[in-house]
């Protein structure tokens, strides 16, 4: 692999052991993909929180800082476990306050901007079309590639941290134009897409992800007015059951004004994938993992809720009260929480018996302390959130639409799809 002078200095340890280790990681990854060189990155995003980094990972980060690792590129960070503002009220055990304080300290020392958001692209980390970036958090990466047209591989956290410290990433995979062509066509014409809600799109994508695997899918028959929330539903779910880094939505994705442009000319010869309404119904049953009707917690925000999504919950809760034995949490970024205060949403959700919590996501952060506090059955409007909270934290999950989840919060019981 060809390295520039500065990159050779890095790997020879001229800038210390930390940056050297980062360059070693990048060259090892680059060489396994036959990358010819490094390219500069303009933006980095780190995914892991304490719940999945744990003490081993915390130590890894502390070692990196001790050995001179500092980010050179604007770098943001995914949600953590709680918002310090609400720590007493939630309540967060002392041990996790300590751990999150350690996370804060080490990330700040590394030079990371502590956004604690997975919609960082809505709150300040906005790459341009064609930029090379290193975004971990599989949903964010596929969003950047498919909606913005910036270029990120499905990098693990260690790769993106190494990119942030060195300022470069190996040029392979989705960084190269010829690897960004559509490889399989998705046909949705036998589904009732016109009636689909946000959850239906996720159930559809759940099934499709298994068939797409690690290829680049092209959707060419979605309605032209499909809202961004539903595109996110497809993208964020495809990365759970598949290894998808880029999706071409013809007419939406900057590189896909037409199906020919998306596929590099030969759309006709590509495999076509379609699923049936029955498959979508089966996916619903597969995503939910609970059989117990009584719901302990209804949680929104995987990925973190936008202001529009919170507005939708506020409307559904109008004049209603949340069941006394059920909690309702809306997870979002600190920016959106601030906006919720201004919009009166915070007060409205509180009056109904729920809460808006910043700096966390609904897939994992809070589950590390909620599960020991007796929260067992959750209702969630995210297939991704259902998968991770079940498999990582043994939550029993119900998956359904925002409306079905709000109804569960009011009744204290799951009455949605099963």
């Amino acid at each position, binding site marked *: 692999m060809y390295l520039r002078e500065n990159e050779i200095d890095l790997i020879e340890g001229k800038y210390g052991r930390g940056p050297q280790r980062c360059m070693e990681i990048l060259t090892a990854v680059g060489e396994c993909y036959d990358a010819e060189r490094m390219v500069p990155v303009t933006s980095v995003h780190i995914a892991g929180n304490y719940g999945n980094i744990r003490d081993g990972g915390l130590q890894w980060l502390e070692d990196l800082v001790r050995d001179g690792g500092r980010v050179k590129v604007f770098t943001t960070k995914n949600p953590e476990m709680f918002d310090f503002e609400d720590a007493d009220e939630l309540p967060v055990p002392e041990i996790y306050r300590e751990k999150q304080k350690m996370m804060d300290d080490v990330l700040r020392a590394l030079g990371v901007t502590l956004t604690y958001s997975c919609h960082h692209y809505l709150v300040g980390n906005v790459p341009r079309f064609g930029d090379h970036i290193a975004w971990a958090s599989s949903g964010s*990466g596929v969003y950047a590639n498919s909606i913005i047209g910036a270029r990120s591989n499905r990098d693990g956290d260690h*790769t993106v941290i190494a990119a942030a410290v060195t300022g470069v990433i190996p040029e392979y995979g989705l960084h190269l134009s010829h690897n960004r062509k559509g490889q399989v066509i998705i046909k949705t014409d036998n589904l009732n897409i016109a009636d689909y809600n946000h959850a239906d799109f996720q159930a559809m994508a759940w099934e499709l992800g298994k068939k797409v695997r690690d290829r680049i899918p092209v959707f060419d028959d979605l309605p032209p007015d499909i809202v961004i929330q539903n595109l996110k539903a497809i993208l964020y779910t495809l990365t759970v059951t598949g290894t998808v880094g880029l999706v071409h939505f013809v007419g939406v994705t900057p590189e896909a004004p037409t199906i020919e442009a998306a596929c590099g000319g030969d759309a006709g010869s590509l495999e076509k994938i379609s699923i049936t309404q029955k498959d979508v119904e089966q996916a619903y049953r597969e995503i939910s993992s609970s059989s117990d009707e009584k719901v302990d917690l209804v949680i929104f925000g995987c990925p973190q809720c936008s202001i529009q999504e919170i507005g939708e919950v506020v409307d559904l809760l109008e004049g209603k009260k949340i069941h006394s034995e059920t909690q309702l949490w809306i997870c979002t970024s600190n920016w959106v929480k601030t906006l919720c205060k201004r919009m009166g949403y915070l007060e409205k959700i509180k009056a109904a018996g729920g809460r808006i919590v910043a700096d966390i996501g609904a897939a994992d952060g809070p589950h590390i302390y909620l599960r020991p506090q007796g929260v067992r059955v959750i209702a969630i409007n995210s297939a991704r959130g259902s998968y991770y909270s079940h498999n990582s934290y043994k939550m029993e999950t119900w998956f359904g639409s925002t409306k079905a989840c709000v109804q569960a919060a009011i009744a204290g019981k799951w009455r949605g799809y099963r």
Partner: protein
Amino acid sequence: MITIKAKTVVKGVVRGEALVSHIPISFRGGVDSNTGIVVEPGHELEGQCIAGKILVFPMGKGSTTGSWQFYEIYKQGKVPKGIVNIRADGVVAVSAVITGTPMVHNPEQDPFQYIKTGDMVTINADEGYIQIE
């Protein structure tokens, strides 16, 4: 003895018992990081432990935080001895790099035709091949 050439991800030579999954694996949510046991419901390897095995699977999937999980599995001493992938996903590749787990990908022949769970397999990632006994 069958030999299949493959591309090196992380150097090293290891011999061990194969554990084969025909479907992708997510180290985040798919494998318990304390025990190394596959926990994804309905997964082909559900209930099986990856520790000390030559883990053969097509590719990684799921969350990009998988490399932290893999690092934790490593800290707990439950990592596989070596990894064979059809195509290394970036998350699995960097997991192998930071833990020094010998790994190859892009085998020249379909390893699923030749390797069954329980077979003794050698990964020679110094020279870029796998050998099935």
